[in-house]
């Protein structure tokens, strides 16, 4: 399964700047990762340690690479909270080992996923609503939307205008890094500008 070349072009830009920056594969993967999640068996994204910020294209390099947990410490259905991409409003996110394969899942069982905690309908807090039986977040206390964490945070039922933003993860040894987002965080007009 390869991603649509048009998407890759859209992500990378057509001017070759990504290639020049030496990050093309990484950039491709950032979206391809989600689009192919669950099909590819060994999607382990390679970070760009040491790459100066200024050299990488804006689309991705501006997302920080942040250590958020360790594979060995995660237990099935025991969510772990972290903040991403910054410590600002609505940055709280969930990291959870679902115990079943999931879209964008990492780790040996491809079952570790992370999502922003803020409902993409009207900003309701989803903290504490993890539903182990259904591998879901919700219902949102405001208007009852539920999200399927096995399927890239797509809504199950409810009013959200888009999927729950998925936090893109990488594994390096035992370390789990957050490296990007897929989808706009509620309340912000831009994930990185607030």
């Amino acid at each position, binding site marked *: 399964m390869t991603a649509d070349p048009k998407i890759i072009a859209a992500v990378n830009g057509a001017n070759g700047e990504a290639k020049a920056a030496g990050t093309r594969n990484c950039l491709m993967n950032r979206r391809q990762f989600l689009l192919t999640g669950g099909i590819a068996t060994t999607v382990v994204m390679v970070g760009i340690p040491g790459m100066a910020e200024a050299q990488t294209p804006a689309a991705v390099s501006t997302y920080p690479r942040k250590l958020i947990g360790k594979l060995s410490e995660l237990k099935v259905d025991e969510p772990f909270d972290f903040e991403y991409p910054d410590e600002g409003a609505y940055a709280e996110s969930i990291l959870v080992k679902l115990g079943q394969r999931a*879209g964008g899942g990492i780790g040996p069982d491809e079952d570790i996923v992370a999502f922003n905690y803020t409902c993409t309908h009207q900003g309701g807090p989803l903290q504490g609503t993890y539903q182990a039986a259904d591998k879901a977040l919700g219902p949102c206390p405001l208007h*009852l939307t539920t999200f399927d964490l096995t399927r890239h945070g797509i809504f199950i039922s409810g009013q959200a205008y888009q999927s729950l933003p998925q936090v893109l993860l990488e594994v390096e040894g035992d370390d789990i890094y957050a490296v990007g987002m897929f989808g706009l965080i509620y309340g912000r007009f831009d994930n990185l500008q607030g």
Partner: protein
Amino acid sequence: MSTPYYVPEESIPLPPVDAEVISTACDYCIVACGYKVYRWPVRGGKRGGPAASENAFGEDFPVSPLGAWVAPTQHNIVLHNGEPHHVVIIPDKDTEYVNPLGNSSIRGGAIAQKVYNPQSPTRDRLKSPMVRMFGVLMPVTWDFALDIAAEVGRHVLDKHGTNAYGVKTFSYGYMENTYAITKYALRHVRTANFTFHDTPSDVTSTPGFRDAGFDNFGPSYEDWRDADVLLMCGTDPYESKTILFTDWIMPGIQNGQKAIFLLPRSTAGVAYAEKNGGMLIDIQPGTDLPVVLAIARVIVENGWEDSEWIKDWVNSKWESSSGFGQGTRNTPWQWRTTWGKFQTNGFDDWKEWLLAQEYSVPEKAAEIAQIDVQKIYTAAEWMAKPKADGSRPKTSIMIEKGFYWSNNTGNTNAISALGIICGCGGRPGQVIGRAGGHQRGGLRGGGYPRNKSPEKLPGRRRRAMDTDRYLMSGHTRLAHVIGTTWVQAMCGSQSLQSKFDELTTRNPHQVTSFDKNDIIDTLKKRADSGGMVVWNQDIYLVDPIGARYADIVFPASGWGEETFTRANGERRIRLYPKFYDAPGESKPDWWIIAQLAKKMGFSGFEWKNSNEVLEEGARHSRGSRKDFNMVKVAAHREGKTLHEKLGEFGTNGIQGPVLMLADGTLEETKRLHDVNRVLPDDGPVGGTVFNKKLTHFNSQTGKCNLQKAPWDLFSSYWEWLKPREGEVWITSGRINERWQSGYDDRRRPYIVQRWPENWIELHPDTAAKFGIESGDYVQVFSDRIPVQKDTIVGVEGDDFDFASLLKNGHIELTRASITAVAIVTPALKENIGYMDFLHTSQPANALAGRVVDWISGNYNYKMGVGQVRKMGESPYKNQFRSMSFARRDIA
């Protein structure tokens, strides 16, 4: 779209401070939330900033919950006066009514995706009139298409009579359009071959309400909130009229309201209610009536009925006999009770009847419905048992299509009676009505010529034509179809489609010329040969009515592309202004109709704009639930147009019927049947109408009729239909995320990702029987879909009962098959398959029996039956991009 996968954005442009702001309302469900359109030119590259002083919302970003956030699906680019403009469309954060917290559903919330943008999947909007030549729809000029339509239309009327000209139209597509369409079809063409998008016959949707004296849309939204006990039949408002649930009923539940659902299926609203002290009465399809009557029986056996209300507001024997309380005119509500099947002499007579019916015994009703009998007792207690201090619970009843399209007459009769004895009607928190489906945009420009209908029922009854049966019999020579799929929206849709094929594409007279006169001659020959020609007005090309059958396609413009007016489910009338250019040559339906009417030689269609249409139609609203005639009077006094005046009310609108007081001010109507309302002593001013239903009920006396609701008028159909060995009920309904046929939603990448095709929910035990798992492709099929044929003259009382129709050879058994993706969920009762009601390529209605409710003439769409067979695995089973198989009722 360039990819079948939705790729979300991670930033959006904010409207700058000087963006223009246009107030409007949502185009979709009955609730019609208030919205604001922020519009600014693309030219110049202007964007708003994150500081409150830098954007049109005056808000700092990130915004707070419920704030003026803009999701990527809420931004688009349109042409306005020929120039590209950004539009951001979000729910109005300042509105005082309907959605006062600035909330919206997933449908309306993403309404910015609806507007035409050639870079989006809306690119296939119809942009030119088209005429089918050599089998292909070719773009032509308006004059070319209209000349043909007028010439052939005139010929059909002259040669085959007015009933050969069939008009099938939306009933809701804004008052300007419906007025023009009905003026054309009913006042000028005067055809009885006329009906709306959701029924084969132009008849009342809720006969029981009509006969009891209830208006469908009497309640105000705060009444639903303020009830102590709310019985919701055949709908979870969360799923289909979201804001009515989240912003009105949910706060009620949080305040202690006991919510009862009468449904075979649990969804998010049901789950929320159950978690908060409510109850689901999980009946099997079609068994509402015995359960409703059993609840009523428990109430009267315990003496819990609202005696004072009944004494004041129920017709006695003598009152009822004055033409069933409806007057002695020769009218449908009188005919319905020709043999005394429904009429009673008041409460005692009704009670005696109720207690004599075996199916109203709770244990028997529970057996028929396959429910826990305790739920009947609990419902009765909640709804009617007086509290310790002697006061009564404030009880309200809401019904919708799952209920009134299962056993149309019987269910609506039964629920009316239950409502009356519980004191529902016309008081705060004590109301009865419909929740609603689409918005209320009907305005009659002509009366239905019922005396021309061939439907002759026993007694003196002549009922509106069953246009499907008339077409099946080959009498319709010209089908003029406006804004509806017709085929998939009706029952037994696949056999109906076969007939369309035969009458149109398989008729030998097909256009093989580009010459206008040749085309006209060919189409006339087709009509004369017993075939049918088809005109289709719509915003998209619909398969098959437009794509396969239409000889002429007229491209229509819609929401935001013309200034329109419409009311919502609490009769709130709002203006929906034009804010961008309609695509190509598309025109509003009123304009299309006006040009056609003029070419056909009819006068009175010289309107220059949509305001002129509404101003002409205003007087036809007098006395109706959305009477806005006096708004026009007020507007003219102030030197304004009606549209200008309505625009001043913004998203708050004005709640009809609108009265004018002696001092010239306008007075709104919070609820109908408002028994506490005091109207001015000196009577109506000027053109104001004080309709009886402002303060009383819709009957001769102004009181309610308590009606019998015999199960045996329906049970012969139900018993015959119910699943046999290897079969399950096949029923259908709306799903929150898709509106109507999905004409917009199938062009929203995110919604397509969630619901790429039709699906069927099955209970785990049922699925296991068929070896089906979530994500499997299944075939849903049947070889015993009953189809009523022949227009017969009824003589005996039961000639139209299903058993008689079957015995006398008027029922044909047809076959149908559709595919779907299985969703195995405990949220649905066993032995049922539940599907989206209107996927055009996988229409659930194919499995619903095409047999009209023989009292009312409506279809009972929810009554279908079939078998389910696994075909294999769908692509959605083992990948994670599309669909979700998680249960929808997580609480």
